[in-house]
């Protein structure tokens, strides 16, 4: 039975009274406290009426106002409803709990968000760069990124 995001939000509020869960009407999406995300994720995956068994996409976003956001798009194949979940963290301490052990596809998605945006996923078993070379410094897709002059003796800019 497909549920609306508002109804899912009310279920989460009832199940987790002590975790801060907000609902953004405009998108619509759910905003969860970053360091308690894994508990909520396990509930979303295992609860009978929610059953979000597929993580469609996990991406990192640089808001430009000093915050980084980790956005997850969840899908339920059993009930055919979808949900968007966001975790907002400040750029100088970007720690989000990893959901790699909840949905295994988050393994590479979180590595990409770490590599390109800089969000650190606490509890990820193998968090290293996936697209840039392993000894690259900086996170390229941040809004305040500056291209380095040299990389290992090779001139980078045109």
């Amino acid at each position, binding site marked *: 039975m497909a549920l609306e995001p508002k109804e899912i939000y009310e279920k989460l509020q009832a199940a987790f009274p002590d975790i801060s869960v907000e609902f953004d009407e405009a998108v619509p999406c759910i905003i969860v406290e970053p360091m308690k995300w894994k508990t909520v994720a396990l509930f979303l995956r295992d609860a009978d009426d929610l059953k979000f068994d597929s993580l469609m996409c996990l991406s990192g976003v640089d808001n430009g106002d000093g915050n980084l956001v980790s956005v997850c798009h969840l899908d339920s194949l059993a009930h055919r409803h979808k949900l968007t979940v966001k975790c907002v963290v400040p750029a100088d301490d970007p720690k989000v709990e990893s959901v790699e052990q909840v949905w295994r596809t988050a393994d590479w998605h979180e590595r990409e968000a770490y590599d390109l945006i800089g969000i650190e996923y606490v509890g990820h078993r193998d968090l290293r760069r996936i697209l840039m070379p392993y000894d690259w410094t900086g996170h390229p897709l941040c809004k305040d990124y500056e291209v380095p002059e040299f990389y290992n003796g090779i001139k*980078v800019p045109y």
Partner: protein
Amino acid sequence: MGLLDKKFENSNIIITSLEGVMNWARLCSLWQMSFGLACCAIEMMAASASHFDIMRFGVIPRPSPRQCDVMIVAGTVTLKMASRIRRLYEQMAEPRYVLSMGSCSNCGGPYWNYGYHVLKGVDRVIPVDVYIPGCPPRPEALLEGLMKLQEKVRSESLVEEKAA
């Protein structure tokens, strides 16, 4: 066999120079180590296929750098790949040539301005002999670049020092 037939009418002796023979042998058997990295690789495959047939120039794709004469860098070269290209170029035996195919390996291509991960031209890591412009160059353009390389090989000298 064109002109060669006429020479064989009366006797079967050709007089030429050692340089001429060696250069001729090298230019019509340029075995390639194709570095098909991105979209230019498709055009290189099209050049190897039957319609454009790069093999009639003597160009055979070889998997190992030790067995090749020419390295055709076809596609975008990222900084991650640049050190590998340098290593493979150093493993090729002389005389070795490099053909830079397409805009990305010539000068960084469409990624020249905002590509933080792209090497702006493969000539920043290895010396290039012939540049083939295009995005991607047609197979005929690749064949023309190959013919220009053949001209370069034809005019090489055995005695003079080559630039390293």
